[in-house]
């Protein structure tokens, strides 16, 4: 009995153990790793990935996938920056509207939500497979970003905007606050609410969920909208941190995000996984990235190593679920 529970605990806490092992190894290999600056640095860097990956987790839990988060992030960031800097000008009507920071932030987040909703709409209404629907959105949103920015960065957004991505509050960086609040909300959503339960049920067995009266289309649409909204918030943070909206921002973010979800133990076929798992997955990737930089590993090798870590995580996961 005892050996069994030990084994089960090892399985349960495997990613925490992996994290701890990585931290110990890195602090032995580099004296720059375990410093307060570097710790906050890592946390700040991963916060955007955490935020996006929360949305990705919800989507993957329903059995879907969202490839468009990186592009949505870019567009939302650009919209926020554009609204803030240029406002909206209607020359015909001789009308100019300037936006406050709050207005621009809402504009950016809503842009993300709207595109996410559109993903959900095509997926549920026209039964487009999520992979295809969001792949299309990946291109659409990137194209819209280019159109909006004319292909050039929008820079000089002011100190207030910069505070969101670079400021500190009570000794903790703002992006970390934002991601922590989002994670907390998502944990409550998945564990305590009907919507959360419905998400797991749909991913576990969609037919049974439908026969139980769950509103599948509505739930999926909400989930993709949330993923879009969170990508939008991610876009605002990225834009704020750089004090500029880059037309090619967020490129490849969907992959890091899917990697975090998968390393966190969420099954790509849906129905199984947790938000906290994803947070751990994002931490593992973030610390790995940071450590490889500190150890002066070449960027090319970094990618190879990251790939193998993803594989390893999934293999361990499969092995464990067989073990059960």
């Amino acid at each position, binding site marked *: 009995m005892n050996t069994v529970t030990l084994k089960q605990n090892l399985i349960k806490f495997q990613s925490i153990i992996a994290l701890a092992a990585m931290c110990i190894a890195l602090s032995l290999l580099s004296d720059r790793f375990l410093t307060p600056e570097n710790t906050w640095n890592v946390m700040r860097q991963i916060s955007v990935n955490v935020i996006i990956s929360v949305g990705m987790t919800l989507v993957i839990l329903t059995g879907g996938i969202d490839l468009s988060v990186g592009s949505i992030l870019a567009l939302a960031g650009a919209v926020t920056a554009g609204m803030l800097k240029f406002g909206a000008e209607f020359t015909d009507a001789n009308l100019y509207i300037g936006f406050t920071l709050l207005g621009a932030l809402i504009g950016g987040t809503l842009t993300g939500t709207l595109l996410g909703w559109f993903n959900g709409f095509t997926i549920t209404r026209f039964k487009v497979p999520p992979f295809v629907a969001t792949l299309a959105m990946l291109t659409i949103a990137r194209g819209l970003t280019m159109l909006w920015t004319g292909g050039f960065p929008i820079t000089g957004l002011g100190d207030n905007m910069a505070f969101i991505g670079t400021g500190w509050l009570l000794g903790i960086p703002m992006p970390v606050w934002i991601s922590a609040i989002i994670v907390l909300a998502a944990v409550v959503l998945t564990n305590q609410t*009907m*919507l959360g*339960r*419905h998400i797991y*049920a749909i991913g576990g*067995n969609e037919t049974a969920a439908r*026969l139980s009266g769950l509103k599948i289309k509505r739930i999926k649409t909400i989930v993709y909208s949330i993923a879009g909204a969170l990508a939008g918030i991610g876009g605002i943070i990225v834009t704020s941190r750089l004090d500029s909206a880059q037309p090619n921002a967020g490129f490849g973010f969907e992959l890091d995000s899917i990697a975090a979800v998968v390393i966190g133990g969420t099954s790509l076929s849906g129905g*199984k996984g947790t938000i906290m798992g994803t947070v751990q997955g994002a931490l593992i990737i973030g610390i790995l990235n940071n450590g490889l930089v500190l150890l002066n590993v070449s960027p090319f090798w970094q990618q190879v190593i990251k790939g193998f870590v993803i594989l390893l995580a999934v293999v361990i996961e499969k092995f464990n679920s067989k073990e059960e």
Partner: protein
Amino acid sequence: MEKQNNIPRPVLEVRNISKDFSGVYALQNVDLEIFPGEVTAIIGENGAGKSTLMKIISGVYPEYEGDVLLNSEKVAFNNPKEAGEQGVVIIHQELNLVPHLSITENLFLGIEKTNRLGLLDYAAMNKQAKALLSRLHLDISPSTPVNQLRVGQQQLVEIAKALLLDSKVLIMDEPTSAISDQEVELLFKIIRELRSKGVAIVYISHKLNELFEIADRYSVLRDGRSMGSGQMKGVTHDQLIQLMVGRDLTNSFQKANTMSTTEVLRVENLTVQNPQNKNDLLVDDVSFTLHEGEILGICGLMGAGRTEVLEAIFGLYPKHVSGKISIGGKELKIRRVNDAIAAGIALVPEDRKLQGLVLNMSVAKNTSMASLEQISSFSFIRKKKEEELSELFIKKLSTKVASSNQTVGKLSGGNQQKVVIAKWLATNPRILLLDEPTRGIDVGAKSEIYRLINELAAQGMGIIMVSSELPEILALSDNILVLSESRLAATLSRTEATEEIIMKAALKEKE
């Protein structure tokens, strides 16, 4: 041939087998002997360990304590394929077909026939498949994808798949749970043929009457332990039950007359087209009424349209249904499942694995799935209420679970079925549609469920029950509909219905 020295030798022996799942024993020191040319029945309550034992014998679970001997030699199969190569073949309780592949492709999965070019020889495979299907009187093209088949038909395909292999020991884990008497007779004919050829057959069923008809020998499991074995000849129904449950079952189920005159559901000219083929009618012009407190039984052969009647009422064929459905006197357009649920209709579906359960979720979460609103405030689930709800039904249905947090997929088949029933009873519907509700449920629990159904009727619920077991229909129903080839062949009241009349009506051909 073994009989020369007069003592028959077992072809397969199980010695002192134990098996645990994370520390909990499902089997403890079990012994079993299987003889060639005999049908051995394995009986026991839900969760007694029957399927687990069969999975050990057939290589599904390679890890266990104890020995399995084939022809007196110790064997240790690592997987079902190895077992199959040595002639040990199993038909599983839970259906294991690949949904999108055709019948032929499923039958020949892993043993495909190829022609000289190394390409799949569909012609030869289809031919053999067709012959096999007609042996089972399954009148369907072998190129039909299996996800278009009903559960009973899938069960026959599973049987066909096993027959395709040359088996010395053929294990059948509840092969008849979803098929009606007609098909059971066919299966028995085949079993007798195999038996006379010297095949050893292991047969699991909760339908004791079947066992008296087909089995030569029995072996009883209770809570994972061997409780005795012997010849079927000379043992009685009650003795078997005594061995299974360890006490006498006062099985005297008394139906109360609870039917009122208030109409709760009226179905007029219900017609359902096959979504794959508009000219094929799954239900053809069926009309009936259901009253509060009434139990309406629906019977008929497999493919007669019984399930489709329930599914149509529940909104599963939104674009292919015509006719009029009224609830409480008001016509209702049921365009999707939610309309049906909103109108107070619940359906316990026939296929628990596909339609009923989220297998990787807990018992509690599955139980509350369709009634989350009841146990939530402001959309937040009250975990305590959820647990209470599931505990309540675990007790009511005597479901064998470790705890309400146990994953449903790890329960025995019968106990999974009880969770599906619990899920729908928890919604407290006005109209309850039951499709083979006691599929795979043991004798003791069956009468519990009958009592429960009766109790619900007494509370004024209108209940429609589809079942392949005539005794069940006769015992519970106030009125009985007999379907034959998608049409209503007879409407009988409780007093006029007998097995003979029902069978005759069920066999009535369309003129």
